């Protein structure tokens, strides 16, 4: 099988940015040839197979498109095992592929929790059967996410875990967090921290401030997140271990991470499209599809998150894809489940950052591909010899987000009906096309 991706703007951040052709053969990138000649208009999308060509060879016209290393979403909840009515590994992988992702990391808060090698292996086996995108399990920091005992990181690493996190449940015990960082270091497993002080949370369901006050909803102060970000930075310094801060939502967190990076702390950070797109006001009249944890914050916080993305304080855009059914969402606001799905809207929402001048397109690709790969030590990049994990993005296509077209089993997104520009049109994993939109 030979595939030629022709005439697209090929972006491999820090390495390559030019109109080029990529030749893929047997699942690998064989050649990237810069194409500086004046472009000739393509005669047709697919070149007819001739007798001396392999019957399966194909040319993809990527003119006007952006060709990037496969996008990686390092923060996804796949819900299997345990909550298959919300999402399965299969449906989640399809959603990822149609959102332009070639790899996803799944968080351990399943039932049973991914805190032992059996569950890790089960997830990988299901992912192999799904045979769509690459699935990298994130295992738990503590047994049962209970924050009382360490999991067997050696076993988990051997089974295929790429990082550890108690996502959804913060590690409240600072000593346990310290030891987790130290112990995980021996296995080269990055620690991903869900930063939240449960005492400061105090039953809050939306951002603390004028909106919460008006709506009579208990608020979550910014400090609920930032005190733990600061703690984990201190523990990272103490242990000289890397820590990755999940779903950064506040100005104070951005500042703390920026200052820590400046003095050389091994801290990295991610945020999600909803934190740089929406604010607390988007909760509107108690819309449970705008309820997540951390909550949508103020305009100031949104601005700080965008600045953090722009200056490199925030390394990664991850979605925190959190499928919930109507059972969790069609209930009273304070009782509704936290989280929204994100795999199938992330590229479109993130491209807006380029349009708004917050990021250059190279930087966006970095945050959605290069940087997560670097943090998780995964192969990445459009280079000869690498596995052909490639995403093709049409940056100009205008469309309206419609949940009815989603591959995810869940529909919980505040972005339904939103007009957006740009989307992934082709996703290739190991040379196999796992998603293809109609290319004009």
């Amino acid at each position: 099988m030979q595939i030629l991706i022709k005439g697209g703007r090929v972006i491999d951040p820090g390495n390559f940015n030019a109109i080029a052709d990529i030749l893929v053969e047997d699942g690998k990138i064989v050649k990237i040839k810069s194409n500086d000649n004046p472009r000739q208009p393509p005669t047709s999308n697919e070149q007819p197979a001739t007798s001396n060509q392999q019957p399966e060879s194909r040319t993809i016209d990527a003119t006007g498109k952006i060709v990037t290393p496969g996008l990686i979403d390092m923060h996804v909840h796949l819900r299997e095992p345990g909550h298959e009515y919300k999402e399965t590994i299969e449906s989640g992988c399809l959603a990822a592929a149609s959102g332009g992702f070639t790899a996803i990391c799944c968080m351990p808060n399943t039932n049973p929790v991914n805190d032992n090698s059996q569950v890790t292996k089960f997830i990988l086996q299901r992912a192999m059967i799904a045979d769509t995108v690459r699935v990298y399990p994130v295992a738990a920091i503590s047994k049962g996410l209970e924050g009382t005992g360490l999991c067997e990181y050696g076993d988990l690493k051997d089974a295929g875990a790429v990082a550890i996190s108690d996502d959804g449940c913060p590690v409240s015990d600072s000593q346990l967090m310290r030891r987790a960082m130290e112990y995980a270091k021996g296995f080269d497993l990055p620690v991903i921290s869900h930063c939240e002080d449960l005492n400061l949370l105090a039953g809050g369901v939306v951002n603390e401030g004028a909106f919460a006050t008006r709506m009579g909803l208990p608020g979550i102060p910014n400090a609920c997140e930032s005190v733990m970000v600061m703690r984990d930075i201190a523990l990272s310094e103490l242990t000289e271990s890397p820590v990755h801060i999940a779903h950064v939502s506040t100005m104070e967190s951005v500042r703390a991470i920026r200052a820590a990076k400046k003095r050389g702390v091994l801290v990295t950070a991610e945020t999600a499209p909803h934190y740089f797109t929406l604010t607390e006001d988007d909760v509107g009249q108690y819309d449970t599809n705008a309820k997540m944890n951390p909550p949508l914050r103020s305009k100031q916080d949104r601005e700080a998150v965008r600045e953090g993305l722009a200056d490199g304080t925030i390394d990664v855009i991850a979605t925190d894809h959190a499928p919930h059914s109507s059972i969790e969402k069609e209930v009273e606001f304070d009782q509704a489940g936290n989280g929204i799905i994100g795999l199938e809207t992330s590229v479109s929402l993130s491209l807006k950052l380029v349009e708004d001048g917050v990021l250059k397109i190279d930087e966006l690709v970095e945050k959605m591909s290069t940087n997560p790969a670097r943090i998780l030590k995964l192969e990445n990049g459009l280079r000869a010899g690498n596995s052909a994990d490639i995403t093709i993005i049409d940056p100009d296509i205008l469309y309206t987000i419609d949940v009815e077209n989603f591959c995810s089993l869940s529909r919980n997104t505040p972005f339904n009906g939103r007009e957006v520009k740009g989307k992934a049109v082709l996703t290739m994993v190991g040379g196999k096309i796992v998603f293809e939109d109609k290319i004009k």
Partner: protein
Amino acid sequence: MQLERKNILDMASLSVDEISTILDTADSMKEISQRPVKKVPTLRGKTVVLFFYEPSTRTRISFDIAAKRLSADSLSISASSSSMVKGETLIDTARNLEAMNPDVIVMRHSSAGAPHMLARMVRPCIINAGDGMHAHPTQSLLDLMTVRENKGEVKGLRIAIIGDISHSRVARSNCIGFTKMGADVIISGPQTMIPKGIETLGVSVTHNVEDAICDADVIMMLRIQKERQKSFLFPSEREYARVYGLSKKRLESAKDDVLIMHPGPINRGVEIAPEVADGPYSIILDQVTNGVAVRMALLYLVAGGTRNADTD
């Protein structure tokens, strides 16, 4: 008089004209409760469901009496006696109620926004009888009615609301309601009980109770819940009473014609001294009386009585 709306969800969504219409209607309803035969046929054949997910005595009884005086059929459901205890969701319970064709659902719920959700999902008129810490529009309307009755008009008055503003739906609704009707609202209490951004409702804040009291035309005290000590909102009832409570002595600095209000139930000796609650400035029981009139007015206006009540 007409009201072009199906639901009464909060004070924020009511216009000045609508509030005036409701208050005028309530004024005319009040007389019915003073008759020897306290019943008019206005809402005969209408069904009013009192859907109370949270315990309530005053508000539920007040609505029940209001419905009965207008000849509506009223019935009460509480969380403990409903299928909620069997795990039925709020929406399912509401849809089942809807299937029996009630005209009005009066709803009290511990979750903010629950009546708003119901209003989107079911046909009957929804009247919010208190949702979490969010809104208690019928309380605010009866407070407006009581102040207007005693002072002639609300506009230009200075209203002090003192206590746990954070957890009070009454405070929120009154901040919005009184401000909307042209009064100046000043709120006071310990910082732990003042929610962030409350000024955006158009009110001013002071942590000195004396400042709030001295120029006030109306002083509204809020109930202090003892269990809030556990979330560190205040150290003791004793200290609260001493620093923030409305004592007879503290009242000496108030205006001569000040009115004392309280949405109830009162904690004698904590936020309000017994002699103040029972004293000459207190209109606390007038509030309760007017509650029935306001709720009659609302039921009449939303359930679309075929004849005007005052002509009966």
